């Protein structure tokens, strides 16, 4: 059963179609990703799901309701984690959770207990009476997620959940999100980080310029749109383009980036042997598995982070 269903969804701002006719479904309990660069239309799509952005065309149902007509009822079942933390800095940590719960009309007695549980879940029990401004970036993010869970949402919308966090904070956050997924919460995640999409998403759509350019599980997308391995070689920025012709037959596909050349091949080590065999000694070389980054490059001709 799908909890979100979008058909021909369009959002225009003047002449610009921020979201340009997309179709997708999210099943209950699924972890669904919207992957794409900045400006691809991911956040706009998220806002339309929450009913805080009105669509220009198409249909959208969330838990069987139209978020434009039944905004408050739809949002009663959503947990919204915005891209930028918007915690209430005039309230302390625990007050943030309780006050936010009151916005949903939940009773105070219930919220007292719920706030304590969520502070424990977010590993912030000791910070309960701390001012929000005194928290680290990772803590603020966890508090924002805890706040988004106050109403026991059926769907959690996470817009760029780990952008701006250091690696350790990201892993703590991923771990928390994974637990939620295990509890059966539907996650909708936007990200421009490939590793995040691979960690969190069962299934994802790749978005570019407001359109969906591919859809599938991370493994499926890599299988369909890339090779098993990638060989990255650097010859120095002035030589990279010059040597490409001599490499053309060594890989299924070659991408030349400003700082390096990517050779797509089932066997990266073998390709590297051939490169060396031709007397082309790269300054550095790296063989790695294909990632969603490569899928995106293949589909759009551009890197995700620019």
């Amino acid at each position, binding site marked *: 059963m799908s909890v979100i269903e979008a058909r021909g969804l369009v959002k225009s701002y003047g002449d610009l179609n921020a979201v340009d006719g997309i179709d997708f479904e999210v099943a209950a309990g699924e972890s669904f990703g919207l992957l794409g660069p900045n400006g691809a239309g991911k956040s706009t799509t998220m806002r339309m799901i929450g*009913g805080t952005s*009105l669509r220009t065309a198409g249909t959208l149902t969330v838990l069987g309701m139209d978020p434009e007509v039944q905004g*408050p009822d739809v949002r009663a079942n959503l947990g919204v984690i915005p891209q*930028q933390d918007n915690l209430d800095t*005039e309230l302390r940590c625990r007050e943030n959770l309780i006050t936010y719960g*009151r916005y949903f009309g939940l009773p105070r007695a219930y919220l007292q207990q719920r706030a304590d549980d969520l502070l424990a879940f977010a590993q912030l029990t000791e910070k309960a009476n701390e001012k929000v401004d005194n928290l680290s970036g990772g803590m603020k993010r966890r508090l924002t997620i805890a706040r988004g869970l106050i109403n026991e949402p059926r769907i959690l919308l996470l817009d760029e959940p780990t952008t701006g966090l250091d690696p350790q904070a990201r892993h703590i956050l991923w771990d928390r999100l994974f637990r939620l997924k295990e509890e059966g919460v539907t996650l909708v995640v936007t990200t421009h980080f490939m590793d995040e999409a691979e960690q969190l998403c069962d299934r994802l759509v790749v978005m570019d310029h407001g359109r969906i350019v591919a859809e599938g599980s991370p493994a499926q997308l890599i299988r369909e749109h890339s090779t098993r391995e990638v060989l990255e070689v650097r010859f120095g920025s002035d030589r990279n383009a010059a040597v490409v012709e001599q490499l053309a037959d060594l890989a299924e596909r070659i991408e030349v980036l400003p700082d390096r050349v990517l050779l797509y091949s089932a066997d990266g080590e073998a390709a590297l042997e051939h490169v060396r065999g031709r007397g082309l000694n790269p300054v550095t070389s790296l063989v790695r598995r294909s990632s969603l980054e490569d899928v995106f490059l293949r589909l759009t001709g551009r890197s995700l982070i620019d």
Partner: protein
Amino acid sequence: MTAMAGLYAGNVRAVLERGFKVIGNQNWTILVSGFFEPVFYLLAMGYGLGGMVGQVSGPNGTPMSYLSFIAPALLATSAMNGAIYDSTWNVFFKMKFARIYEAMLSTSLGPLDVAAGEIGMALFRGLLYACGFLVVMAGLGIATSWWALAMVPVALLIALGFAAVGMAVTSWFSTFQQMELINIVLLPMFMFSSTLFPIDVYPQAVQWFIQALPLWHGVELMRQLSIGAFGPMTAVHLAYFGVMSVAGVIFCALRLRALFLR
């Protein structure tokens, strides 16, 4: 009705609760800041200037001391200041920087709940300033009629008009420079709305202009109430704020819809 769909969830109370929680956290200090300005005017002008002026002619030609003449006007100003403080600068900060409303609107609250709650907080501040000022007036022995007590609900009406319009206007502003426009409008309005001297000192055309502004109606109304002397204009003053409040609230709701349901 579809234009209003999804705008209201009937939970203004939660927005008010948040406001009072924040006031509690600030130990109420921030609340008093705007209260003193009219009090200082009352003392400086009323006693300082009042000694030189002597008796002036109040509503319906009633002779009154200068202090008694300006006190009700400053009460109206006090209610206005309280309402404006919350509905302009506070709203601006919450909208642009703290993004409080963005968070509120990701819950089951609708824009109308938020607007009504924030206007409610502005009214509360207006009420607090007005009550405080009335106590000062009583202490100085210049609230002589029992009608003076009716100044409190009227102060609320004045605050409502200013809060609703102030909030709607603030929704158009995006920079601090634009916010300064509010002061540029409010200060001359305070100076010229027959607050400190009667309106008939101006040429007729200027009088008409002043009479179109809200504060003049507030000032006249308060002055009439202070001595319990009413006239046909009383109803006009009340109606002015009634219309201003209703129009302001509708305007405000439409602006919030435009801002948050893009």
